[in-house]
């Protein structure tokens, strides 16, 4: 077990190396010059040259890349071209906010989504099932930015129950988490439904019922447990993507998280910021995947570590 985890974490090194290399290459080959972006159109040639020298933009690709890597190993992600702050400090300051939002969202979405899915599966073809399908399709069709604004209008501007925007405690967290939870609940409920229907059709469920096990117990011990793997997969994927920042929700509710930071970086072509976000984002994603795999293992002893690791 320990060696498996270590092996997976060790694999992160070549992966990150590859990702940094490809992203670096892509950023470099983009049209548009960050130096010109920085100094504006009317700067004199000397200023442009001195700034390019300062940023190392006049050196070749290999030297730039190796220079970047050697700093990276020391934990230096560079400074933002615009704010001149350490990228790592900024990310570390914003990441807890993003984690908070992601956790709150999953805290709402997991129970609601799974319960909805179970209810629909048990009622297959019935009213609850059809209503659930309609609601969840509506949930994934909702433009988050519009839904967020409407929720804000109702709950914070009209009813004045929550502050409209900002980063902070529970009262700030409630609205964005609920808005973000809607699409998550929808996908989760649909996956749970399909997966439960599959599991219900398995012969061992019939056996369990035939030997006189209560319906409730059969569902909890035999059906749900078998249905959990795809559900966990979706939870892992959703959580991983929320940890990389929910750009739109963060923008609407003024939540100071990674998503907005990344988007600002992209729009301003702040290369150190973009690279930093990509690297941290990949590492987080890989870590979430690892945890998901370990959860599989716990839930379903038939899954072997080596098979997953092939």
């Amino acid at each position: 077990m320990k060696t498996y985890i270590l092996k997976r974490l060790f694999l992160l090194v070549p992966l990150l190396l590859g990702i940094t290399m490809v992203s670096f290459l892509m950023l470099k080959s983009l049209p548009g010059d960050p130096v010109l972006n920085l100094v504006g159109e009317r700067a004199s040639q000397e200023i442009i040259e001195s700034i390019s020298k300062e940023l190392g933009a006049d050196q070749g690709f290999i030297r730039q890349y190796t220079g970047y890597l050697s700093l990276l190993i020391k934990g230096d992600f560079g400074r933002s071209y615009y704010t001149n702050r350490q990228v790592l400090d900024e990310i570390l300051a914003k990441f807890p906010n993003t984690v908070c939002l992601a956790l709150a969202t999953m805290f709402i979405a997991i129970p609601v989504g799974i319960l909805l899915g179970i209810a629909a599966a048990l009622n297959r073809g019935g009213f609850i099932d059809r209503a659930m399908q309609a609601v969840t399709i509506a949930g994934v069709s909702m433009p988050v930015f519009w839904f967020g604004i409407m929720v804000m209008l109702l709950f914070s501007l009209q009813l004045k129950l929550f502050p409209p925007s900002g980063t902070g405690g529970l009262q700030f967290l409630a609205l964005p988490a609920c808005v973000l939870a809607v699409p998550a609940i929808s996908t989760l409920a649909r996956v749970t439904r399909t997966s439960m229907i599959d599991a219900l059709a398995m012969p061992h469920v019939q056996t369990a019922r035939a030997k006189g096990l209560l319906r409730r117990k059969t569902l909890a011990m035999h059906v749900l447990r078998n249905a959990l793997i795809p559900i966990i997969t979706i939870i892992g994927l959703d959580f991983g993507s929320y940890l990389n920042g929910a750009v739109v929700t963060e923008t609407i509710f003024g939540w100071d998280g990674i998503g907005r930071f990344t988007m600002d970086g992209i729009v301003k072509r702040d290369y150190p910021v973009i690279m930093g976000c990509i690297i941290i984002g990949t590492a987080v994603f890989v870590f979430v995947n690892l945890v998901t795999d370990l959860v599989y293992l716990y839930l379903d002893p038939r899954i072997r570590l080596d098979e997953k690791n092939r």
Partner: protein
Amino acid sequence: MKKTGKIASGVLIVMVVFSVMAPLLPIADPERIDLDALREAPSAAHLFGTDSKGRDIFSRVVFGGRVSISVAAVAAFTSAFIGFVVGLAAGYCGGKTDTILMALVDFILSFPSLLLAIAVSVVLPPGIYTVMIAIAFVGWTSFARIVRGQVLTYKEMPFVEAARSMGCGHARIAILHIAPLCLPISLIMMGIKLGGFVLTEATLGFLGLGVQPPTPTWGSMVSANRAYILSAPWTVFFPGLAIFVTAFCCNLLGEYLKERSDLRRSLRY
């Protein structure tokens, strides 16, 4: 499901007809500024009210549909085409081609898709083609995956062997014998993906990265009128509702297609 599928496609057809016919319809000019009618509530004269420059929101929504629907449709076709070609090549050639192409797919899928679309729209000059490219750039991967899977199954079938033994070349087998069999699934995928593409277009528009003003788009209308949400909520409500209804109908249609084609299992939900 059959009935909802029909209703959804009916609504979509009406929307498409409205968008295509927009310049011919007897509605106000969507870009005409009327300083005497600022932020008027919905009435008989202005069905959806007017915005902060006195422009008629109903006609802006109708004209905005031209952008949203055409972008989503073109992006769907482009994604399907690229995905089809890549999937066919990867599945049929196998070996190194397969490994490289699928690694590319995995690489693109490893980024949050919205951020990637944002990155593409920042790099290219703003405009309607940029939005189409940005959406297709992210969207083709799922087509490639599903077509590749299909090709892998068909490749082993006796009719391929028969064609080989009759002396058909690889290109002929791939294009004339296998590709037509993968067309239905690509069309179905297009239906399934359409709703998501509508939402991505709207989101890019909302973030200011879509088709630029004064051309009305649903997403940019929501963001431009956000400031007046308390005094004139209809300026935000109706464009957003248009996005929601379009995406909802597309997704209902996709759901219907998914059920009919038995794709539900392989798509997981």
